[in-house]
């Protein structure tokens, strides 16, 4: 038997900082009121730069990452799910929404104490659930709510000034809403700074994940799940942007020195959709075969912003400052932000299975993947939309595909034993044996 090639590997230096930043985010939100600040809650896709413009003591709780944190703790998640089902809500709805709602119903914050009620909700509705999620909450909590409707063709597919204006107008209205709700005034200078930060943060994440095109991959996807979260918490926050500058430098350094995420990397996977958060150990199981999961359209493109050309090539989009975009007014800032948001690859998942298939095949090529592992995610209709069509397209393009059923937020829909058995079968078919 030939000797297994082993790459050098080492822990990420900025790992502890990532953990501390994330803890601080949830702590800041909980403690905001006691310090005279404001709390707001909305989706990870909400245009968070708008509340950002109302002061540094305005703290966010973005709903999907919070719900994922709940899912990571099945005991807490079960309490949330039980409370919701006891009220008659069906368990086939968005699992993130159910976890978040359940946390409100049981009045418990996943990070300790009672659930911290926000001062207002701000959401961007680009899937069928997003707008309703906070409409219901605003009724339960008696909290004012503003939704910005996004639903439209992404700009990397087709730009159109009217569609941009549709969003910009709503953003102006949302500023008025927050001013009326909180009695504060929007700080346009801070808004402009936040827009620059947002574009830098999301451009940096794209650049960081682009580095995973290298062999060995400097990052594995399980680790990336803990790092990408900052793009979903508060993109305008300078401390998150600075963290990504640090992570980008460190990842570049890992590539330069040949540092691998997985010492025994010999096979590269791509995934799809949100993972079953309670079972991330499955990613470690893959590593026993020498398999590294490099990421996915979801991981790189949920918030990472990319230029996508006519041949579906993915290139990180340079941030607004680097592109020489000068923002002087509120209108400039909102217009630039709306344009930026519409360039996320994630919109392909929600609007067109064929676009998503093309992006996935392109990802597999650019990231040098040997196969794909797709999560038939019962917890998210949006990211699962057309996933079997994606599977067929990948197979046609020559990439073997493993599918498994699960749920990002509800561990009752995931059978770990059978999933591991499927992985064993898939690996056997690929001729891969466990290395340990």
């Amino acid at each position, binding site marked *: 038997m030939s000797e297994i090639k082993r790459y050098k590997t080492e822990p990420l230096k900025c790992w502890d900082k990532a953990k501390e930043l994330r803890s601080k985010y949830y702590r800041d939100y909980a403690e905001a009121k006691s310090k005279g600040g404001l709390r707001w809650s909305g989706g990870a896709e909400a245009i968070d730069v708008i509340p950002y413009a109302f002061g540094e003591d305005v703290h966010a709780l973005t709903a999907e990452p919070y719900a994922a944190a709940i899912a990571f703790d099945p005991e807490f998640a079960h309490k949330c799910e039980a409370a919701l089902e006891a009220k008659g809500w069906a368990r086939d709805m968005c699992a993130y929404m159910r976890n978040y709602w359940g946390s409100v119903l049981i009045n418990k914050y996943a990070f300790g104490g009672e659930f911290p009620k926000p001062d207002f909700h701000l959401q961007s509705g680009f899937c069928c659930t997003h707008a309703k999620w906070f409409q219901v909450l605003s009724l339960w909590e008696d909290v004012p709510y503003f939704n910005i409707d996004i639903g439209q063709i992404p700009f990397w597919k087709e730009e159109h000034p009217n569609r941009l204006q549709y969003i910009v107008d709503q953003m102006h209205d949302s500023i008025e809403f927050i001013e009326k709700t909180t009695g504060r005034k929007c700080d346009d200078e801070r808004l402009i700074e936040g827009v620059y930060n947002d574009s830098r943060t999301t451009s940096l994440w794209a650049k960081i994940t682009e580095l995973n095109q290298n062999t060995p991959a400097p990052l594995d996807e399980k680790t990336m799940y803990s790092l990408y979260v900052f793009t979903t918490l508060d993109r305008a926050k300078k401390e998150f942007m600075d963290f990504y500058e640090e992570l980008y430098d460190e990842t570049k350094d890992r590539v330069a020195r040949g540092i691998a995420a997985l010492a025994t990397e010999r096979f590269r996977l791509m995934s799809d959709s949100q993972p079953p958060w309670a079972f991330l150990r499955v990613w470690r199981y893959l590593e026993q075969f020498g398999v590294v999961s490099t990421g996915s359209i979801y991981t790189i493109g949920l918030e990472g912003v990319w230029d996508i050309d006519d041949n579906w090539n993915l290139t990180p989009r340079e941030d607004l400052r680097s592109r020489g975009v000068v923002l002087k007014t509120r209108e400039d800032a909102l217009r630039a932000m709306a344009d930026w948001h519409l360039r996320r690859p994630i919109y392909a998942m929600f609007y067109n299975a064929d676009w998503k298939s093309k992006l996935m095949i392109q990802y597999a090529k650019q990231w040098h993947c040997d196969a794909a592992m797709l999560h038939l995610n019962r917890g998210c209709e949006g990211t699962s939309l057309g996933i*079997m069509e994606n*599977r067929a397209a990948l*197979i046609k393009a020559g990439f*073997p*595909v493993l599918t498994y*059923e699960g749920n990002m937020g509800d561990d009752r829909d995931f*059978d770990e034993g*059978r999933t591991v*058995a*499927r992985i*064993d*079968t898939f690996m*056997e*078919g690929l001729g891969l044996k466990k290395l340990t």
Partner: protein
Amino acid sequence: MITAGIDLGAKTVKVVILKDEKVIGRGIAVTGLDQKESAEKAFAGALQEAKLELKDIEKVAATGVGRTEAPYATAHITEVGADAKGAFFLNPAVRTVIDVGGEEGRGIKCSAEGRALDFAINEKCAAGAGAFTEAMARALERPLVEFAKLALSSTKSIPMNAQCAVFAESEVVSLIHAKTPHEDISRAVHDSIADRIISMVRRVGIEKEVMLIGGVAYNVGFVNSLNRGLNLEVVVPDHPEYVGALGAALTAAGK
């Protein structure tokens, strides 16, 4: 070389003993709470048929959901890998294997070398497995073999709408109350399970020859529905429930 393959399935354990690529013994036992004990029982049956003792077996490989619990085994292969290997051994022209067992249905696409290229599994619902037909036979108060044969004399197609074995049983009861002939009910049940299996197997692609294995291959009503749905004649080997164990025995033999 004498080898053995153990297929430790959800409902039964099957053992095949192979001598120089010829099957010389088979044994089967119901999978009880103690899987190891069940496997030993099946193994003893196979040894008896082969007129051998345990010490005569040079190598043992196991497959099936309980393969890691199988006694004597020093090698393991997944159910999909074992099915492909066993089916290809029996008929090298096979490119698609359909395995319908007690609790699982599988579709496997095979290479010209007998390797599993792709697979699909119905694993969370009994509607595409043997347990479904057993439940429906109980609802009609007929032995399974008799229930299966009934379908062959039906000339009428009745769609079954229920997706779930429990609700399907209620639907069968409704058909009984509506005085629907039992042969038509039997066909409806078998068409229903065949439709689910076909839809699953289409995911990996259907290419001739198609071999049907697993215990449900004995069900003539199901085979009839499957052939009609696929618009071809599936190959049903002798002893279809032992094909996985045969694949394991071949693995033990280094094939």
